[in-house]
């Protein structure tokens, strides 16, 4: 630490500005990029999005000759290409929770809300910043995954698929849209729970525990209910084939967006009302 000037006088600030949304957006962007763990989580998420399909493709290619017809029929090139989405969603969800829960655990939320006492612009800015960042990072990753897996599988005609085939472009881009939406959902969960462990656990319960739990229900109930779960509805955004007891990509996507909107609405109400 350098020594302090004995003559203390606070220099005047000539320019005085008001709090404005574009400024809060920039401030939240600074926060997002200035914590090392954030950068590493996103980097890992992108890497895994690409690494999984590549690995999956190599394994499929090397075993193709010895695979049974039914095993071969079970392999779909798009499933291989988007195998990383499931992993990316976890990385993006954990970071989404952390972006707000870490503010509470470190106490920086008090600084944040002192600068922006109306509070809501902070939530909107975090959501927008994070949605853009996660989409901009995951979109190239799924595109690379698609073309890389297709290149690796080039000598297996049954696994060749064109980006211009019906639904393929929508599914690939949909993978990035899905991950982006998962990020906003997780951020809202983080804002509601305000605790890292609790937020991640809540997210995991909704996305990974609830779906298999549905199988304990009678089949007709399971078929009727499961398709409306956030994870199942959201999954349709990047599913090429419309299976039985699932929503269409558009309906599923809209249902998932509705879940995100509901979580964000609850987060917004609590953010304004609760003490920090």
């Amino acid at each position, binding site marked *: 630490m350098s020594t302090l000037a004995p003559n203390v006088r606070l220099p005047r600030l000539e320019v005085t500005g008001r709090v404005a949304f574009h400024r809060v957006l920039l401030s939240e962007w*600074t926060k997002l990029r200035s914590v090392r*763990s954030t950068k590493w989580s996103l980097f890992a998420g992108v890497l895994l999005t690409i690494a999984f399909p590549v690995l999956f493709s190599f394994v499929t290619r090397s075993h193709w000759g010895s695979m049974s017809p039914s095993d071969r029929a079970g392999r779909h090139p798009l499933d291989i290409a988007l195998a990383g989405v499931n992993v990316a969603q976890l990385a993006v969800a954990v970071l989404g929770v952390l972006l707000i829960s870490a503010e509470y655990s470190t106490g920086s939320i008090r600084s944040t809300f002192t600068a922006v006492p109306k509070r809501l612009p902070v939530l909107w800015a975090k959501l927008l910043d994070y949605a853009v960042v996660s989409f901009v990072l995951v979109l190239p990753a799924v595109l690379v995954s698609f073309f890389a897996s297709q290149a690796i599988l080039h000598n297996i005609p049954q696994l060749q698929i064109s980006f211009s085939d019906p639904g393929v472009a929508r599914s690939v881009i949909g993978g990035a849209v899905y991950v982006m939406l998962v990020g906003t959902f997780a951020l809202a969960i983080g804002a509601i729970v305000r605790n890292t462990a609790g937020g991640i656990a809540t997210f995991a319960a909704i996305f990974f525990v609830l779906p298999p739990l549905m199988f304990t229900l009678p089949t007709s109930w399971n078929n009727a209910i499961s398709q409306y779960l956030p994870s199942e509805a959201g999954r349709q955004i990047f599913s090429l084939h419309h299976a039985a007891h699932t929503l269409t990509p558009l309906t599923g996507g809209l249902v998932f967006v509705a879940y995100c909107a509901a979580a964000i609405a609850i987060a917004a109400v609590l953010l304004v009302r609760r003490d920090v």
Partner: protein
Amino acid sequence: MIEARDLTKDYGSKRAVDGLSFTVQPGVVTGFLGPNGSGKSTTMRLILGLDATTRGDVTVNGRHYRDHASPLHEVGALLEARSVHTGRSAYNHLLALAQTHGIPRGRVSEVIDLVGLHEVARKRSGQFSLGMGQRLGIAAALLGDPKTVMLDEPVNGLDPEGIHWVRNLLKSLASEGRTVFVSSHLMSEMALTADHLIVIGRGRLIADTSVDDFVARASQKVVVVRSPALESLREALAAPGVSFEPAERGALEVHGLTAEEIGDAAAGAGIALHELTPQQASLEEAFMNLTRDEVEFATEMEKAVA
């Protein structure tokens, strides 16, 4: 200017702030004094709107804090609890705050230099010592060139040089016409810095007074007298509310009368006095005398609850 009217805050069934009304004027350093747990930090959070009031109201520079278009230009605050992300550098912490108001980067460097954090500004603030964390908090408070500066226990963790610097800073800010509101649980610290005092205990207002008046009011009227005719003096002074206690070397401690009253009474009765010494309570004693009841009551309450 900070104006609180009937400010009250409950956390569950516990009342942390209880009907506080006070005004913090610009141009002077106002000390906010009270024992630990008396509600100072809560009051400051209420002022900033971080916690919602249960009852009553508080405004800063004429408005609720939340309603200011440029809050950081109105109030610069240092809160007692840590309020910095440990993974972020001091520079980026301040930059993110500055950007919400469009405050230029140059200002961030300016306040970093002012508090002497230049060499560590790019390090993760989680590695900071308590004193460095305090300096960063003070830098954040000064960032917006605020009309009102509110610091919660600013000298905590500072070395003597830092403490001296904060005292000078507070006086300098007040001399520029700003409102300066600074809390402490140490009366001696306040005596060196503050012009005015707001004293609370268990969330209630105990005193709202100048430092000098506070000491005078809080000091009990105790005078030590020596006289060759102590018995006659006792008879001359006896009155309701006046009591006596033997003091060292045959002196007498008179409670309930000023030195002037005793001297006049002695002269009137023709009694010679060999000593007449008003006992000035120290600042810390004065403070403890005022808050003792509140503290004792609190302890009894805790016992009753336990």
